[in-house]
C-alpha cells in the first residue's frame, strides 16, 4: 500500500501529521513531507487516519 501526496492540494493545515507522525512530517512552512511512499507493516490505520484528516483531500492511499 502506498500513501501519495498531491502537493498542489496541500495547504499546510498540518492535520495529517498528528495521527501519523511516523508517516508524515511537516516542513518549516507547515507543508506535509512524506517519510516514504510505501506504508510500512502496521501503518495502514495511521495512513488512513492521515488521509481522512486532510481538509483538502491532498493525501490518498493506493494499493
Amino acid at each position, binding site marked *: 500500500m502506498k500513501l*501519495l501526496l498531491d*502537493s*498542489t492540494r*496541500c495547504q499546510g493545515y498540518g492535520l495529517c501529521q498528528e495521527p501519523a507522525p511516523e508517516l508524515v512530517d511537516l*516542513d518549516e*512552512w507547515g*507543508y506535509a513531507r512524506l517519510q516514504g511512499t510505501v506504508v510500512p507493516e502496521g501503518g495502514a490505520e495511521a495512513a488512513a487516519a492521515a488521509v481522512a484528516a486532510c481538509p483538502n483531500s491532498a493525501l490518498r492511499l493506493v494499493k
Partner: protein
Amino acid sequence: MTGILPLVPAGQPGLLTVPPGGEDLAPYLAAGGYAPLPAPGALLGRVAATELRGRGGAGFPAAVKLRAVRDAPGRPVVVANGEEGEPGSVKDRWLLRHRPHLVLDGVRLAAAMTDAARGCVYVSDVRAEQAVRRALAERPADLRVDVVRTEHSYVAGEETAVVRRIDGGPALPRAKPPRPYENGVGGAPTLVANVETLARIAVLHSHPDAAAAIAGTYLVTLSGTAGEPALVEAPAGTYLKTLADLHGHGRAEAVLLGGLFGGLHGAGWTDLRLDHDGLAAAGGALGCGALHFLRPEDCPVAVAADAAGYLAAQSARQCGVCVSGTGALAGTLAAVARGEAADDDIAKLLRWSGQLPGRGACGLLDAAARIAATLLAHFPDRVQDHRDTSCPACGDAAPHDGRRFAVAVP
C-alpha cells in the same frame, strides 16, 4: 547570432541538415521521408535495440514509453511536444521551424508503433506553428494531426501540463500518478514525446544502417558570456570541453548543465562528457542538452541567484512547498550575492537543497534546489568570499529575471 554546427561523422544523417530552399514536401520525399512502414513492431524493435532515450530532459528510454502507451487500455494519442521551456535551449523550436516534415514523420511512425488514432503538435513558438501548419497542409495525410498552441512558460512543456492544455485547461502540471501513458489526452493513453525524439525516430526509420549512431547523437545548445551561442549536433561521449572550445567558451571556469535543471559544475567540468548517466553520476543532469558556460570573471553566485530567481518567478504557484521553497532559495541566494547573508543562511540552503527535491508536482523545485546544492558543493570558497568582500560581478548583476540564459533561435 546563434550558430549552427553539425559535428556528426561524415556520412551519418544529421538533424541539422536542411535541404537547399527549405524542407518542403518534395525534397523531404526525395530524401526518403514518409517511407512506408511494413511492420510497426520492427521499428519499435529497432528503437529498443538502439536504446534511444527521450530528448525532453528526463532521458527516459523511448521504447519503454512507446510500449507502455501501446499496451495501455484505450486508443492512444501521440503528442509532439515542441514547447521548449528552458530559456537556454533552442533545438526544439529550430526543428519545428526548419524540419517540420521530419517531426511530423516521427509523429506518424510513433502513431503506427502505438496504434494511435490521432496525433497532436503542441507548441508556443509562432514561427514553429506556422511551419508545422504549412507542412501539415502538404503532407500525405493518413493520420489526423491537430496543432495546439500554448503560452510559453518554464513548466508548459511538462507532460501533465501538456495534457491539461490539450484538454482545454491551463498548461500547468498536475500530481502524478497517473502519468499520461496511462491516462492522458481525453483519458486516452498518451505518448508525450519531445520533437527531437520523434525526429530521431523518423531518421532511424529512413536510415536503418546508421540507427545506432542516430540514436546516440544529441542536439545541444551552447551559450555563455564569452562566445557566441550555438546549436550543435554531437555524438554522445563528446567532452563538454570539446564543445566549449568550438565557440570560445573553452576558458570557462564552470558550466550550468541541462538548461537550469542540471546545476552548476566547477573544477573538473572539463572531464565531463555528453552522457546522461555520467552527468547524473557527477551530481548533474544533461536535461535538454543546454549548456551555459561561465567565464572566470563570471560569478557563480550571481548565476545561481539569477537562475533561482527566474525559477521562483516561473513557479506555477500551485504547490505551496514550491512557492515557499523556491522563494526561500532565491531570496537567500540573492542575499548571499549582495553580501548580506545571515550566519545560518548557508546551513539553511544546505537543508533546503536536501529536503525540497521531489516534493513539487513537477521538476521546477528540484531544479532550484540543485542550483543551491551544486553552488555550495562546487564553490564553497566563492560563497564564503561574498560574506567578507563585496563582489563586483554580483553588484553589477541585472535583476534576477533569467535574461542572461536566453538564447535566440537560429
